[in-house]
């Protein structure tokens, strides 16, 4: 073992460190921010519509407590604190590139009904070599309509009815309520829905329920 090492070892290590430091001085920036984008692959993905997740599917995943995805709320903090889907993490578009989303997980993005922001975010992540990025189809509005406050049109067939019965259970899980048979047959408008509050347990915590601690 290194007992009574000659001082020269220390000097050699110091010299090596200084040389590497000087090289670093000239290298400048080792961060590779300029991502390469494979346009063909991307267009393929868009074509196969492999980039969308329906609200019902997402609800099932959350209930089944699947841990293989990260849910990202792209809206601003105020909107996020008012309401967000259980487990969601609040990351705005401009912070997305610097965020620490794992490449090992599916990433599901959502915003209001505005698919535009989600699409921008989707493209940014894809460009950064994230492979499993999805957009919540229809955004938060469709989530509210289909999952939180499902309704049944008066002319629904048996298949739709069965689906509605199932959604009745699902919506309870998320703190919503089934609106029952909708006589106007137009589907409830988003504005007419009961006021939403942040889901229990979500509270003021801007973080998801899953442990995100990695540091010491």
């Amino acid at each position, binding site marked *: 073992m290194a007992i009574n090492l000659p001082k020269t070892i220390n000097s050699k290590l110091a010299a090596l460190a200084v040389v*590497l*430091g000087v090289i*670093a*001085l000239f*290298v400048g*920036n080792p961060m590779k921010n300029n991502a390469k984008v494979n346009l063909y692959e991307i267009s393929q993905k868009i074509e196969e519509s492999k980039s969308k997740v329906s609200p019902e599917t997402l609800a099932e995943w959350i209930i089944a407590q699947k841990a293989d995805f990260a849910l990202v709320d792209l809206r601003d903090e105020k909107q996020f604190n008012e309401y967000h889907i259980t487990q969601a993490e609040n990351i705005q578009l401009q912070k997305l590139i*610097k965020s620490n989303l794992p490449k*090992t997980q599916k990433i599901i993005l959502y915003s209001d009904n505005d698919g535009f922001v989600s699409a921008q975010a989707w493209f940014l992540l894809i460009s950064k070599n994230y492979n499993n990025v999805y957009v919540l189809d229809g955004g938060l509005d469709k989530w509210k309509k289909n999952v939180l406050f499902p309704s049944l049109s008066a002319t629904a067939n048996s298949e739709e009815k069965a689906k509605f019965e199932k959604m009745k259970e699902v919506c309870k899980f998320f703190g919503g309520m089934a609106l029952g048979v909708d006589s106007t047959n137009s589907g409830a408008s988003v504005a007419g829905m009961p006021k939403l509050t942040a889901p229990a347990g979500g509270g003021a915590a801007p973080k998801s329920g899953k442990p995100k601690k990695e540091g*010491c």
Partner: protein
Amino acid sequence: MSPFYKFGYFGDEASFIIAFITGIGFGFFLEKGGFGSGNKLAAQFYFKDLTVFKVMFTAIITAMLGIFFLGAFGLMDISMVYTTDTFMIPQIVGGLLLGLGFVVGGYCPGTSIVSCSIGRIDPIFYVIGIFVGIFIYGEVYPFISGFANSTPMGRITIPEYFNISYGIIVFLVVLMAIGGFIGSEWVEKKYGYKKGDGK
């Protein structure tokens, strides 16, 4: 392309085995450096033995240079390495408290584990103290969460904050460390334990 885990080359179960092996390496070199001894650690703060500074900063510049060049050669996506967000004021207060705890208790959390492992008795009390300290923090957290989360600056590095190139900072840190090493050798010669002091 690294980090391997973040690119999904292996799963959670395998990561636990890696954690265990990494820990063995960590504990091994800490002990070899003398970090299992509270006396040696505390001696840092009386200018008797600056091993803490030397080991710590050698480790920091080694890892720093390693990451820098892996990134520069395109072998590593540095942005995917996890670092904690900065909360300036709470971290300053936390750092001061931790320094106080260090000199009063004689260890930091990692070194107390090492010291326990080589049969020392005082770090057992220290580790129990850490548990109590964390428990107290957890219990008062609802009341101090405002302060604990104040001055958030997000994920930010020194080059980004001062808007200076990463390479220049790396160079300066290396220079500072080497200067510090030369300084500590001098300090030890002047104030340190002389041969025959029994330390």
